C-alpha cells in the first residue's frame, strides 16, 4: 500500500512506522527531515511550506511506482507537512517496509532524493531579522 499525505498537521514518526508495519516484513527504514535552526549563518525562526498539492500527490504516487519496480516493497509512507513548521519539527517522513533490510534502506534513500528533485513543494525560510527566502534544492 502507498500512504501519501500532504498536511498542515504535525507529523508523527510513530504513525508512519505503524502504517509501514506488516507481519511478513522484517525491516522498516525511515527518513525524517527536520527544520534546522541556521542557514548560512542566519538564524531560522521557522519554515513555511507550500505545494501544488494535486501535482505533488501525482508525483509522489509515480515515485512509489518506480520504487516498487526497483525493489520488492510492502508499504510506502510519504508524509509531507505544509504551512508553518517550527524548528526541530519534521517537514517530511518517509517509511518503507520490506521483507529484508537492504530493499527498504535503498528505497528510502531513493525516495527522499527523488522527492527533493521532482515533487512540487516549496520552502520559505523566515529569519530572525524578519527577512525570508524561497529556497531551492541544490541536489
Amino acid at each position, binding site marked *: 500500500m502507498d500512504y501519501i499525505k500532504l498536511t498542515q498537521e504535525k507529523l508523527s514518526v510513530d504513525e508512519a512506522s505503524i502504517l509501514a508495519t506488516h507481519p511478513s516484513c522484517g525491516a522498516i527504514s525511515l527518513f525524517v*527531515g*527536520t527544520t534546522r535552526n541556521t542557514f548560512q549563518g542566519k538564524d531560522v525562526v521557522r519554515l513555511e*511550506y*507550500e*505545494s*501544488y498539492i*494535486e*501535482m*505533488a500527490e*501525482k508525483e509522489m504516487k509515480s515515485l512509489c511506482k518506480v520504487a516498487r519496480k526497483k525493489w520488492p516493497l510492502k508499504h510506502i509512507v510519504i508524509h*509531507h507537512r505544509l504551512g508553518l513548521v517550527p524548528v526541530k519539527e519534521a*517537514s*517530511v517522513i518517509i517509511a518503507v517496509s520490506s521483507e529484508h533490510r537492504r530493499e527498504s534502506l535503498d528505497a528510502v534513500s531513493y525516495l*527522499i532524493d527523488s*522527492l*527533493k*528533485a*521532482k*515533487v*512540487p*513543494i*516549496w*520552502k*520559505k525560510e523566515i529569519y530572525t531579522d524578519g527577512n525570508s527566502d*524561497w*529556497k*531551492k*534544492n541544490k541536489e
Partner: protein
Amino acid sequence: MASQVQEVAGGMTEREVSVSVLFFAGARDLAGVERSAITLPVVTTPEQLLARVVRSFGELDIIRDSVIISLNQEYCVPGQELVLSAEDEVAIIPPISGGV
C-alpha cells in the same frame, strides 16, 4: 473559455484558447496572483507559453530562466509540442525545495 482565431504578423492565423495558469511560491509573489486566465496559442511549446505569460506578468522576467512549466500536473519537456484546450491547467513552477 472558447477558442478564438487571431490575425498574427505575416497574415497567418493562429488559433488561441484561454487556459488557467497557476503561480506558485516566488512566481506567485512576483505575479501578485495565484491563478489567472491567460489566452495562449492552441499549439505551442513551454518556451512560447512562458513568453506569453511573461508578457502578461512582466515581473516574472527575472525568474524566467529558472522556472518549469507543467500542463495538467505533468512537467513539460523543453521544446515539447503542447496542444491546449480550455479545460487545461498550466502552472509556473519555480525551483522546488521540498523535503528537508
